[in-house]
């Protein structure tokens, strides 16, 4: 099962390596990992997507909680939540492809944020499946490069993760 684990941790140097090190040391899987400071500058929020059985996810949660720098851990996928990922896709946009590329980007509610004579950079937000679908919808040979942030997520409604 795929799980989205949200972690609040002290914004200290080395905190990221403690989390990443834990995953490799205990052979836990990481699909994606994102981290940035929060509105409280002393805290960072990290989102990890991992795939594992319930037992493994339980161990991951417990082991994360055991790290001294970790303030709180929550498995977002246990309850209703929203997840988003940002992708920047640089694509070739010449001739007839130029118009078609703009059209597909519009359909996926992407935005073109950089334009040259021969290329676009398209900004696209959504869950992972939507980003995959966009890449599937365009001609793969036109893709010059892509970069994705990995998933970040938040619980719906009253579910709040705060220190």
């Amino acid at each position, binding site marked *: 099962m795929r799980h989205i684990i949200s972690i609040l*941790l*002290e914004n200290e*140097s*080395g905190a990221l*390596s*403690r989390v990443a*090190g834990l995953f490799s*040391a205990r052979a836990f899987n990481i699909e994606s990992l994102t981290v940035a400071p929060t509105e409280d500058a002393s805290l960072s929020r990290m989102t990890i997507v991992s795939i594992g059985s319930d*037992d493994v996810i*339980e*161990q991951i949660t*417990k*082991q994360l*909680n*055991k790290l*001294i*720098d*970790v*303030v709180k851990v929550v498995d977002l996928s246990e309850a209703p939540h929203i997840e988003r990922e940002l992708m920047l896709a640089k694509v070739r946009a010449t001739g007839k492809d130029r118009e078609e590329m703009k059209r597909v980007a519009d359909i996926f509610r992407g935005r073109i944020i950089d334009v040259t004579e021969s290329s676009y950079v398209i900004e696209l937000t959504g869950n992972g499946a939507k980003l995959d679908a966009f890449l599937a919808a365009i001609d793969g040979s036109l893709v010059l490069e892509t970069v994705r942030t990995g998933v970040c997520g938040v619980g719906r409604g009253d579910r709040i993760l705060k*220190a």
Partner: protein
Amino acid sequence: MQLTGAEIVIRCLQEEKVEFVFGYPGGSVLYIYDELFKQDQFKHVLVRHEQAAVHAADAYSRSSRKVGVCMVTSGPGVTNAVTGIATAYMDSSPLVVISGQVPTAYIGQDAFQEADTVGITRPCVKHNFLVKDVKDLAVTLKKAFYLAKSGRPGPVLVDIPKDITTHKCDFHYPKSISMRSYNPVVKGHSGQIKKAVQLLLEARRPMIYAGGGVILSDASDKLTQVTRMLGFPITQTLMGLGGYPATDGQFLGMLGMHGTYEANMAMQHCDVLLAVGARFDDRVIGNTAHFGEVARKIIHIDIDPSSISKRVKVDVPIVGNLPDVLDEIIKLLEAAAAKPDAKGLASWWKQIDEWRGKNSLRYTQGTDLIMPQYVIEKLYEVTGGDAFVTSDVGQHQMWAAQYYKFDKPRRWINSGGLGTMGFGLPAAMGVRFANPKATVACVTGEASIQMCIQELSTCKQYRLPIKIVNLNNRYLGMVRQWQQMFHGNRYSESYVDALPDFVKLAEAYGHVGIRVEKPADVEGALREAFVKHKNELVFLDILTDQTANVFPMVAAGKGLSEMILAEDL
């Protein structure tokens, strides 16, 4: 008044009432050692290798319930210490390791004796810190002591760059500390504890399985009380020995890979299992699928939630400090109308006595070759069962655990988790510093002892009258045993050729050496060492039967009840 970082380190250690710092000086800790020189509130113990400093501090802690402190220099000082730190981490020993670091401005530039200490030690410490500002130094050391001894204890490392030890600031040592990200649970969940007591009272084939957590949390009195109130059989892990008196009739001996027949059989076939401060590790449970073939309810009390349901799924998890939780259980048992199922218990004990009848630790001592088991039994007799016994790792460790009956906690000091050869001698030093009048024996083998043998020099410097019981079988015994049993008798690199003359070696270091070659001489030699040379270090080099193996044995990956007994071969 403003103090330098070096002065602050010393003041913090004094505030923590540290008695001994085990360490080795070097470039980046020179200012700290300079301040250390100027004070006499605590003593520094100069080892001969940093690994030994950490082992000694570790055993000092294990035998005294105080936090062990060591100090090493940057780079190789730290990397030498890593084995010791990992040993302490695996056995949850509370340590504060202070390491020097190159000056702040040099960090990352591959400076002389620079190592990424925080990076290297990160996976084998409870937590570590790099101090970047002298103003953080005191509070960081306070946190280090607090983290080391609270919750599930463990080693904490504080890395201090050399320039920080010369910077000055006001000194204030906080009385207490709170960290929003660290709040270890103390009291167990009362609903879960009630459930546990109910299960215990309904059990027909109950079993208590206790581990090192009992020793670490000083829960042996409460554990003994609960066990006696219930009248249940109890077994202990290698790390738990001494947590319940081994000479008591309810004790079934150690369990696991080299556990007794009755302990392993009872563990496998019980219907309710009370696990106390233990972690169901591979050397204890063997094959978890095989263990799961028998239906049983498991209650697991531990301070560390991540130890619960890690390898074996449990029914009633209780996270809490063992003495507190056991105290609650005692109160509930006293108040309970129901009593343990007497009939069920009687037939369970009958079954256990049948298993006991196998006498799985039996061996025969002839007149020619010395059996290692016999040496441990004689050691037990000669020391009145009251010595602190440290060990290295291998066959001798298992024999010491099997045949020396520990009635008190903190008397058996060994590297159970990491299995570190070289632990025994420096550990014996730490024990002796913590217990300056105690009898301290180091049970070792001719291979293990050579991994930290340089400490014979430290023992001389501090006049430590440790008795080294070297079970010398001229083999890496446990490796040889596995090669005999599982690798077609191919003794690949397990023979230790060109051994030193240990008697002369001991004498060269200024100690007493005695060689023992005949069974009839064992007891006399032990008495000579422990009585006649009471105040000297004695190295007993005892030549034992080269073919002796440790039994019973649960082969790796096998189930607990699939034991190989001595008589099977």
